[in-house]
């Protein structure tokens, strides 16, 4: 099929999209290496390390969503973003609630 109409945005060119994937890949790679380095080289201890690892993971997840899955803040993506945020809420409630209850039971039955 031939190229029809104007590009939807400047990113919708082969070069632009290729750049997106490359940026995403490199960022993800860096974040991964950073996370492994934190553990391998014993940077930070216990709580600080766990928190920084969690942060690195969250940032990498966002990188994946933005660069590989093309989810951003523009209006045409609102539905998907809303769905992701709603899912996030559900995840927080169910996973967080589970951990809360189990910890609570453990505390009471110790």
């Amino acid at each position, binding site marked *: *099929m031939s*190229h*029809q*109409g104007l*590009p*939807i945005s400047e990113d*919708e060119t*082969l070069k632009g*999209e*290729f750049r997106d*994937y490359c940026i*995403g*890949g490199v960022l*993800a*790679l860096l974040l*991964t290496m950073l*996370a*492994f380095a*934190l*553990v*391998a080289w014993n940077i930070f201890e*216990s709580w600080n*390390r*766990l928190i920084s*690892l*969690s942060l*690195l*993971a969250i940032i*990498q*997840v966002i990188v*994946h*969503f933005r660069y*590989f*899955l*093309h*989810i951003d803040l*523009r209006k*045409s*993506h609102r*539905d*998907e973003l809303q*769905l*992701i945020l*709603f*899912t996030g809420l*559900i*995840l927080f409630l*169910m*996973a*967080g609630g*589970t*951990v809360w209850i*189990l*910890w609570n039971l*453990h505390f009471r039955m110790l």
Partner: protein
Amino acid sequence: MSSRHPGINLGDTDPATHQVAESVVFGFWIFLMSDLVLFALLFATYAATSQHGLAGGPTPSDIFDLKSPFIETMLLLVSSFTFGMASLALKYRQDRGRLLLWLLVTFALGAGFVAMEINDFVRMAGDGQTPQQSAYLSSFFALVGTHGLHVSAGLIWLVIMVIQLFVFGLTQQVKMRLMRLAIFWHMLDVVWVCIFTFVYLFGVSQ
């Protein structure tokens, strides 16, 4: 101005498919969100049992090293990138050659990931670290195993798509299936980021 959906958008090169794909991809996206909820609960169970479900058996730091998860992470991350390349070939190129190449590379990387993971599981079982040993190990195998099964299903799906490319060519139906597979594949890498962080890196740290 047409709206965009997650993953590759065919608005410029194939507007007809893009039109049909919008609701189809959104529906698949909703399904993936429900899959995420599944993983979230497996994570929650893992979190709880890794603290108090050890049953006198091995602790996370006893069973995990860094080498294997690192290689697996690289394999999956690069495979996400190569699938991105496949998506670009799907969108911008007329011939199937490039698309096939990238799909096959993705398959090889994904298969490598699954092979390594099976190897890990077999080694653990050989050391007596089976799912039956403790609640912690049960939830570990459930969480990482479910992810591995998802990747394996993705691999089978990839093979079917390669076959369909030959049987049908790059039809609208085939394009939409590849688009959904792409989103599925990227999602699995997202879940893996959480697994290598909260299971392996946390485990080694404790």
